[in-house]
């Protein structure tokens, strides 16, 4: 932001307009936040109320998760495919929604220091992508990864 002094005590700031591509990206993310948010209201709340409240965190066991995801090494059932799809869609939407939220917060506090902002965002995006890929692999390749035979007990 360049500033020019016209009369003493009056500073006029010339704000550089946002580039067209960045503008389109921000509009896309704005819409994505609304629609993914509305989907996540149902996905995240249903998940939380099922697993954390109705079943209850204290009743969650390794064996139950193994059965629900179908990573026991047995042939996968239709029910397990539906659970995997449910978790996969929720994972992608939640992580993307979360990253964009964190991006906006980071921009609010570090937007005036582009190097810090870009550095922080790179680290956050890399961590988020790794965690998501790990989650996807656990859902769809869990049995091959050793979640079945090499189980605890």
């Amino acid at each position, binding site marked *: 932001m360049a500033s020019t002094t016209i009369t003493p005590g009056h500073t006029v700031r010339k704000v550089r307009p946002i580039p067209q591509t960045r503008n389109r990206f921000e509009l896309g993310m704005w819409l994505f936040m609304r629609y993914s*948010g509305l989907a996540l209201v149902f996905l995240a709340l249903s998940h939380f109320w099922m697993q954390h409240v109705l079943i*209850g965190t204290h009743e969650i066991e*390794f064996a139950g*998760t193994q059965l629900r995801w179908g990573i026991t090494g047995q042939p996968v059932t239709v029910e397990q495919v539906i659970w995997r799809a449910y978790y996969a869609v929720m994972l992608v939407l939640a992580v993307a929604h979360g990253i964009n939220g964190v991006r906006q917060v980071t921009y609010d506090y570090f937007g005036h220091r582009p190097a810090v902002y870009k550095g922080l965002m790179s680290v956050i995006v890399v961590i988020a992508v790794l965690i998501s890929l790990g*989650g996807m*692999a*656990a859902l769809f390749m869990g049995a091959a990864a050793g979640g079945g035979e090499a189980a*605890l007990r």
Partner: protein
Amino acid sequence: MLNPLITTARESLRYKGSGQVLWLLHRISGLGVVIFLGTHIFGMSMAAFNPPLHDAMLAVYKTPLFSIGEIALAACLVFHAVNGTRIAILELRPSLWEKQQVATRWSIIITLILLAPTIIIMAYKSISYYATHGLR
């Protein structure tokens, strides 16, 4: 680092009343959920890649400190969902902008209505679990 946060907190409470407070709560609850989300996805993935580590994580989930944090998580999640719905509806339907004050009030009321039974069930289950299994 901390100064902008303090300014944000003070100015949000002071500046334009309820809408600003909801904005701040939306931000805090969102950050709360996203921090748990990262560790939760990682911990659950370990069910496939490292069952002993996954079991260690489940053991942490069954401690009193985590149970308290989990109730805070429920509050963050439900508020963020309800308030996010308010934001989405208002921004996609500008004709409703006259009713912002009403929307703000209902955002809080619906959050409390959904949260009350959730917290009661979670607290009841936690207390009965620690009563039989003891504190670890």
